C-alpha cells in the first residue's frame, strides 16, 4: 500500500542537505555589478551560446518595480533566462508562461542575491514573461521558428497519469477501511473491550489517509446543511462539532464508549453497525470520484492543515489519545498525493520537489521520536502532558512542510 512511500523516502536521504533557494538549481552565475537601471531590449533574436539562447532579465526600481529582458525574441530551441534582482524589493518571482501555464521560473528573488537562471526549450510562438509584483506584471516574449519535437511526454500527461493512479490508491484505502471497520464491529459485538480498542486504532488510519478526498461528502438526496446525509459527519464527527439534531455517530462515538466509559453497551453496538454501513456507502462514493492534479495538490495541503489544526492540538482523539497515529496517517495521505504528482512536478520545479521531499523527511523525523511500540497506534499517547512537551517541535516541522506545499496547486493546475 505504500508503494510510493518508499520511493519518496529513498530520495529524501539524498537531498536532505539541500533546500530551495534562489540558487539551488541554477547555473552558477556571478553577481553582476549593480547597474542603475535595466537596459532597453535590443532588437533581433537573443544571442546563442553553446546552442542555447541567452536572455537576461533584470529587476530594478526607478520609483516602481520593473522587470526587463535584454531580448524579447529568441529562436526556437533551448533558452536560458538569467534573472538578477538589482533593486526591485517587491519582485520575488519570475516565470515564463504560455497563456497561464508555467514553463519555467525562478523564486526567492531579492536585491543583493547573485543572479540565477532557468532553461526551457520552446517552440515558435508567443509567450509571456511574468514578474510577480512588477509593474507591469507581464510582457510578451516571442519565439521564432520551430524547435525539435519534444523527446518525451508532456508534463500534463505525466500529472494526469499520476492522478489516475492516485484515484486507484484511494479506492484501495477505502476498501481496506471497510475490512477494518467490519472487524471493529465484530469485536464490539463480541463485547471484548481490549480487542475492540485495537480494532478501532487499526481502522482509524485508513480514514485519516484519504480524509481530504471525502471530507464533507453529502449523499444524493440530502441538503448540504443536513448532517444526516453527510458521510464525513456520520463517520468522523467529534464532540466539538456535535449536531444535536443528528447526535453522536461514527468512530468517535465508539471511541468515547471504549475509552471514556470503558463499557460496550447496545448503543455502542448500534454505533459500530451504523459505522460499518456508512463506510460501505463511502466505498461506493469513492469509486466514483475523479480528480484533477490541483485536487491532489490542494488535498495534500489540506491534510497538513488537518494535522496542524486538529491533531497536534489533540482535538481529534479526545478519549483514546491516539492523535499521533492519525497525525502519521494524515502525513502519509499528503505524501501519497504529492508522490503521484511528483514526476510531473519535477519537470515544472525540481527545486521545489527536493524541498518538499526534505521537509517530509523532517516531519517524519520529528514524529518518529515519539514512537512507542507499547502504546496503541504505535506512538506515545497524546495527553495534555505529552502535548505540552512535544507539540512545538511537531508544529514547527509541519509548518516547514506546509510552506512549500502551498505552492504546488497553482503549478500543477497550469502545467502544459
Amino acid at each position, binding site marked *: 500500500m505504500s508503494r510510493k512511500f518508499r520511493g519518496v523516502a529513498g530520495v529524501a536521504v539524498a537531498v*536532505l*542537505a*539541500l*533546500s*530551495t*533557494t*534562489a*540558487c*539551488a538549481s541554477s547555473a552558477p552565475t556571478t553577481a553582476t555589478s*549593480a547597474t542603475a537601471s535595466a537596459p532597453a531590449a535590443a532588437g533581433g533574436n537573443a544571442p546563442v551560446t553553446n546552442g542555447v539562447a541567452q536572455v537576461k532579465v533584470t529587476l530594478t526600481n526607478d520609483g*516602481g518595480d520593473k522587470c526587463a529582458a535584454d531580448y524579447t525574441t529568441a529562436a526556437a530551441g533551448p533558452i536560458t533566462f538569467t534573472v538578477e*534582482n*538589482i*533593486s526591485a*524589493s*517587491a519582485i*520575488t518571482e519570475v516565470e515564463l508562461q504560455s497563456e*497561464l501555464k508555467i514553463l519555467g521560473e525562478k523564486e*526567492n528573488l*531579492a*536585491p*543583493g*542575491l547573485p543572479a540565477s537562471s532557468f532553461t526551457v526549450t520552446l517552440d515558435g510562438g508567443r509567450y509571456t514573461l511574468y514578474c*510577480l*509584483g512588477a509593474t507591469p*506584471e507581464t510582457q510578451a516574449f516571442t519565439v521564432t521558428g520551430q524547435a525539435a519535437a519534444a523527446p518525451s511526454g508532456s508534463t500534463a500527461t505525466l500529472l494526469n497519469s499520476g492522478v489516475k493512479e492516485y484515484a486507484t490508491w484511494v479506492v484501495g484505502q477505502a476498501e481496506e477501511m471497510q475490512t477494518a471497520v467490519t472487524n471493529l464491529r465484530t469485536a464490539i459485538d463480541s463485547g471484548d473491550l481490549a480487542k475492540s480498542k485495537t480494532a478501532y486504532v487499526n481502522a482509524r488510519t485508513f480514514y485519516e489517509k484519504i480524509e481530504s478526498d471525502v471530507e464533507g461528502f453529502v449523499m444524493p438526496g440530502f441538503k448540504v446543511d443536513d448532517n444526516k446525509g453527510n458521510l464525513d459527519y456520520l463517520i468522523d464527527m467529534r464532540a466539538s462539532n456535535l449536531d444535536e439534531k443528528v447526535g453522536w455517530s461514527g468512530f468517535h462515538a465508539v471511541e468515547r464508549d471504549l475509552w471514556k466509559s470503558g463499557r460496550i453497551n447496545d448503543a455502542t453496538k448500534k454505533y459500530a453497525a451504523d459505522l460499518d454501513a456508512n463506510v460501505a456507502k463511502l466505498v461506493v462514493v469513492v469509486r466514483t470520484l475523479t480528480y484533477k492534479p*490541483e485536487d491532489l*495538490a*490542494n488535498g495534500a495541503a489540506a491534510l497538513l492543515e488537518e494535522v496542524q489544526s486538529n491533531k497536534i492540538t489533540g482535538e481529534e482523539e479526545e478519549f483514546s489519545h491516539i492523535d499521533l497515529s492519525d497525525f502519521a496517517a494524515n502525513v502519509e495521505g499528503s505524501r501519497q498525493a504529492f508522490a503521484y504528482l511528483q514526476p510531473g512536478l519535477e519537470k515544472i520545479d525540481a527545486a521545489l520537489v527536493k*524541498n518538499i521531499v*526534505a*521537509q517530509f523527511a*523532517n516531519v517524519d523525523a520529528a514524529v518518529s521520536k515519539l514512537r512507542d511500540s507499547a502504546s496503541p497506534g504505535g506512538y506515545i499517547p497524546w495527553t495534555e502532558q505529552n502535548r505540552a512537551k512535544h507539540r512545538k517541535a511537531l508544529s*514547527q516541522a509541519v*509548518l*516547514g*512542510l*506546509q*510552506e*512549500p506545499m*502551498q*505552492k504546488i*496547486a*497553482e503549478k500543477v*493546475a*497550469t502545467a502544459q
Partner: protein
Amino acid sequence: MTEESNGLPQFVAPEPASRPGSEPSGGSGSEPTRPAPSVSRRGLFAGAAGTAVAGAAVGVGVTAGVMGHQERGAASQPGASGTDTVDLTRSLPFYDQAHQAGIRTPPQRHCVYMTFNLTKDATRQSLQVLLARWSAAISQLVQGKPIGPIEPSRPDAVGTDTGEANGLAPASLTITVGLGPGVFDDRFGLESKRPALLAELPRIPSDVLQPELTGGDLSIQACADDPQVAYHAVRNLARMVTSTAQTHWVVLGFGRASAGPGQETPRNLMGFKDGTRNVSTEADYEQFVWLKDADWMTGGTYQVARKIMMTIETWDFDRTSDQQQIFGRTKHEGAPLTGQKEFDVPDFTLRADGGQHVIDQSSHIALVAPENNAGVKILRRSYNFTDGLNAQGLLDAGLLFLSYQNVPQHFVDLQNKLGRFDLLNEYIRHVGSAIFAVPPAPRSGRYIGQELFE
C-alpha cells in the same frame, strides 16, 4: 531596568502638534523623513478623501497622548501643553542609512519583538536568501506597501502578502534585524565573521530565565504607531521563511516605556517615568551605542532583550512612599528624591538628619546612575507588555526591556549590580533574555548582513 544612563540633565522639549521631520537634531545617524510614497496603502484612500495627508496629521494624529498628559497635570511637565502626537503617514527610509532604523528612531507606540531559531536544515545559502528576502520585504513594509500581491491573478495561487495591513498608513514602522550567536557557530562557515563581542550573556544574579523565552538565532523588532502594522510585518516576515527559521519567542509591546530624543518621558507599568536620563545626544550615541572600526559591523550595535515580569498586584498594594524609595524618584513628577523636578540631577551623597542617604543606595536610580558606574550608559528602548492573566488569575504583565550598546558588558555590569542589590527585585522577575548583533543598514540593492557572504 528604568532610569539613569546619562550624566547630565536634559530639558526634554514637548513634541510639536504635527511633527514631520521632528527627528533628533544634528545627528549624522538620524533618519530623515520623507513624504509617504505615492503608492502607499494610505494612498488607496487618497482619492476618496482628497486630503488624506493633511487629514491624517490632524484627524488621526491626536489620539494617544492626550489623556495621559491631562492626568499628569500641566504644571509638572515642561511645556505640558504640547501633545505627544502621532503622524501615521510618516515613513522612515530603510536603505542607505548609517544605522538600522528602530534604534535611534524615537520609540513608536507599539512593538512586536520576535526571535527565531534556524532549523537544522538551514544552510549558508538559505540563510543568505532569508536575509535578502527579509531586507526586500522590510523596504516594502516601511513604505506602507504590501510585500507582494495580496490577491494573486493566477487561479489557485496563495497570496504573497497576508493583507491585514492593506489600507493602513506606514505608521513610522521600523524593523530591526538582529543576528544571534548561533549564526556564527560551525553551521554556516561564518565563524570568522563573528562580531567581536557577540557571546551568550552570562548568568546574572536573580535571573529566573525560562528556556522557552531565552536565546535565539535571529531577532526582529518591529515597532510602529499602529499595532496592526507592526504585527502584520512580523507575521509576513515569519511566514516567508518557515523552512529556514522557526519562531522561538515573542513579546507584544503595547506602549513605549523609554523616551527617545525629543519625547516626553513615558511610564512603565509600575507608574514611574522610565528613561529620564536615557542616551540622547549625538556624542552619547557615538560613544556608547554605535560600533566604530568594527569591520562589517561598523555602524551596527548589540541588542539585549529581557522579558521582565512584574508582580503587579503586590506592587500596587505597596505604599507610594516605599515605591518612591525603591526607585529613588517621586511618582508623579519623576524628580529624584533630592530634587524638585524630573530633570534635576540626583544627589547621591545627600543625607537626611538621621544620617541615612535621601536616595537609598540600593534604589534603582542609584545603582545604575552613570556617576556610580564610571560614566557608563546604555540606550534603553523598552516597551510595556501584557500576556493577559496568569494561572493564578493575576495580571501577567511587565516590561520588554530592549537596550542597545556597543559593549554588551556594559549591560552585564549594570544588571549584575541590579540583580544583586536592586530594591525593585522584590517586584520583578527576569524570565527571558537574549543578545543579538545588529548589523548596519544595507545600501540600496543590497541586504542586511550581505558582507557575511562576500
